[in-house]
């Protein structure tokens, strides 16, 4: 109190308040020469109180403003995180993101088995991410591309500890490195041949965690079990698949900081039927089916179906440094199959792929999508980021597959593919890609090899 009073007194005195005081008194409403004017001390006290009240009111107003800010829900929009609504305390949020990929697909030299050149919506996915408090996160991701609705992700994560979580729902099993890379982040428009041997999406429960400050990540889970490349919404048998993955980034700094290596696998029993074989088919980069187990619509009793253990093992690694990126993996898939009148046989298919890319414009390469250093803005003389990429991949079918379980006259036993591509990142949210991929086959016709696929795709990707 005394500080304020001294301050007021000082101002009054220094500014000539002593001289002005009689005038102030004279101006009192209703004052007369006979009335006793308030003393200077009383006037100072009054002013002192007024200042204190104003200060307190300002203090309370600031408190109210702060409280209102605490209670205020924030809505934001950004290229990185899409559109989001967040509670005032930041504990609850809802993010709406999206991925739209529009392709122009051209098949060159496809004389013996023409494939239609087409504009194509490859993916059209709204992505809804929800955070409820400290412990619960959830994602919903359907896909409306190609005139159908497919549920890709519908899961909830419960954070058990700061470094571990339980995930339930439909999601990517922890297996294939390139599959685990988001569809908006993959280097080429389509994933490599090796991805054919891994599951796409499955329903189950997964426990995951990080140790060594994130240097080691691990996941273990139990799933319905889906065929190679499968996206399952149910199961055809009681038995379940178990999946696990460990990935290590041993160097926290230095030139090898971007190096990671891991191994993943699945195992489980699968017993299909002739009507529901529970077996996968494999596609070319141009999304044409090149391998399928023997099946017939006229004599379905002869269809091949899964009959026993299905396992996969995939060592994998990546390395990123500056504008350079490299990732690769090897996958071996074992599948017990049978068909009418035949003994059960365990088939072993193998595949591998390696992908490399370099940012010509100097962006930092990573497992996730890059943001251009200088987004597209011709007026400012900037044109985005350019990434040049190359890839090689192979997939070999077990020789024991032929001729009992697949028709060698129509099904190749091996595919090899090489690809080059150019990605143009106009902005974080917009990428234009041009890829050429050449795939050759061994076998696949009655007289020799299936005609090679020469696939050119131009993609405009909008992800926000």
């Amino acid at each position, binding site marked *: *109190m005394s500080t*304020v009073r001294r301050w007021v007194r000082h101002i009054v005195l220094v500014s000539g308040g002593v001289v002005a005081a009689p005038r102030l008194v004279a101006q009192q409403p209703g004052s007369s020469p006979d009335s006793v004017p308030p003393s200077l001390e009383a006037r100072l006290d009054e002013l002192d*109180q007024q200042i*204190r*009240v104003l*200060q*307190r*009111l300002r*203090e*309370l107003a600031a408190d109210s403003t702060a409280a209102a800010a605490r209670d205020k829900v924030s809505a934001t929009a950004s290229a990185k995180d899409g559109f989001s609504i967040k509670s005032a305390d930041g504990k609850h949020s809802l993010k709406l993101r999206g991925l739209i990929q529009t392709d122009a697909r051209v098949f060159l030299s496809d004389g013996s088995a023409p494939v239609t050149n087409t504009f194509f919506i490859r993916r059209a996915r709204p992505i809804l991410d929800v955070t409820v408090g400290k412990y619960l996160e959830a994602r919903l991701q359907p896909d409306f591309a190609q005139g159908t609705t497919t549920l890709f992700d519908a899961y909830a994560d419960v954070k058990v500890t700061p470094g571990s979580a339980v995930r339930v729902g439909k999601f990517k099993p922890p297996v294939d490195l390139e599959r685990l890379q988001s569809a908006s982040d993959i280097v080429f428009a389509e994933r490599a041949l090796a991805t054919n041997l891994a599951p796409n999406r499955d329903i189950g429960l997964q426990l995951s965690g990080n140790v060594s400050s994130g240097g080691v990540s691990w996941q273990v889970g139990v799933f319905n079990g889906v065929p190679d490349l499968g996206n399952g919404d149910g199961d055809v048998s009681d038995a379940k698949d178990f999946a696990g993955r460990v990935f290590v980034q041993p160097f926290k700094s230095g030139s090898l900081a971007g190096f990671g290596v891991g191994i993943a696998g699945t195992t489980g029993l699968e017993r299909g039927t002739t009507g529901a074989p529970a077996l996968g088919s494999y596609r070319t980069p141009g999304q044409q089916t090149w391998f399928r187990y023997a099946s017939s619509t006229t004599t379905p009793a002869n269809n091949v179906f899964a009959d026993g253990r299905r396992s996969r093992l995939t060592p994998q690694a990546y390395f990123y440094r500056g504008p350079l990126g490299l990732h690769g993996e090897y996958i071996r898939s074992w599948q017990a199959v049978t068909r009418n009148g035949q003994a059960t046989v365990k088939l072993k298919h193998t595949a591998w792929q390696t992908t490399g890319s370099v940012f010509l414009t100097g962006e930092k390469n990573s497992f996730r999508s890059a943001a251009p250093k200088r987004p597209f803005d011709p007026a400012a003389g900037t044109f985005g980021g350019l990434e040049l990429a190359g890839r090689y991949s192979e997939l070999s079918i077990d020789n024991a597959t032929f001729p009992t379980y697949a028709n060698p006259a129509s099904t190749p036993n091996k595919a090899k593919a090489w690809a080059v591509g150019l990605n143009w990142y106009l902005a974080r949210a917009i990428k234009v890609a041009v890829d050429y991929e050449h795939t050759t086959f061994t076998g696949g016709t009655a007289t020799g090899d299936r005609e090679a696929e020469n696939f050119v795709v131009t993609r405009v990707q909008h992800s926000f």
Partner: protein
Amino acid sequence: MRTPKRGMPKTMRIRLALRGSLALLALTDGAGLAAAQAPKPATLLNVSYDPTRELYEDFNQQFAAYWKGKIAGQDVTIRQSHGGSGKQARSVIDGLEADVVTLALAYDIDQIAEKARLLPATWQSRLPNNSSPYTSTIVLLVRKGNPKQIRDWGDLAKPGVSVVTPNPKTSGGARWNYLAAWAWALRQPGGNDAMAKQFVTRLYKGVPVLDAGARGATTTFVERGIGDVLIAWENEALLAIKELGPGKFEVVTPSMSILAEPPVAVVDKVANKRGTRAVAQAYLEYLYTEAGQETAARHFYRPRLAAVAAKYAAQFPKVTLVTVDEVFGGWKQAHETHFADGALFDQIYQPGR
């Protein structure tokens, strides 16, 4: 095991004795197992009003020790939340998960029962003394020497007297202040509602700042040096003298005041959901024990237990007290007449005028 104290209500003594016996049974029956399986720690949230911070800081430690050592062997942590009583009640209605509420007036807990249905409407009959383990009243705190010569309520409406009191729209304590002033005016010769309104209107014309809660009003008066008199909870006024300014302030006990009965209740739905029902119930019951009453008295709340009240009698001046029921027809009626939107307080106090 603590022996249930004499002076406690009989039903509560029986309840505590039973709980103690069960705990003893659990310890002696399969002692090895019991030793290996310590009960999981419990956490309670006590949502309270502004001036009870110090009371519950003290009481919580005491109860935690009692609960761990004497009854259940369980660690219990009690978190506190304080603010204007009405505001706190709204927070609970809006989802703040209080295991127990210890608010300034029964009306606020009634609102939780009525609007959120988190506890039954009969909550007030579940603990003794209308679920009010301690009482208080409203007094006047003035600066040392009482420069404006304030002796009773009437002096607050005199020209030139600056009065500090919080906002009855958000503060339970402020409602008690307002009603105490109104009741005094009614009891003056020829007193009636019109005169009371006139008096309270003049009083609020001298209020320069309306804080949201009682603790904020104390800050305004004691720390910011605003005003000539603070209308305050008795416990808040005595605490201010003890802790903030011995020799700087004086308590003026008016000729008449109001019996403030701050109530407590378990919030059934929250406590059941969180599995804290037993400890929450014991927490409130412990307020009625001799130890709990001593703690309340040490923090200047008037104890209910006769023995403790006698011990601390010198601390609390004798004053004629009226109740909300007898003067205002209960809290519901008082709210509708005085504090609802557009009711008397809104007519009396218009900011900026």
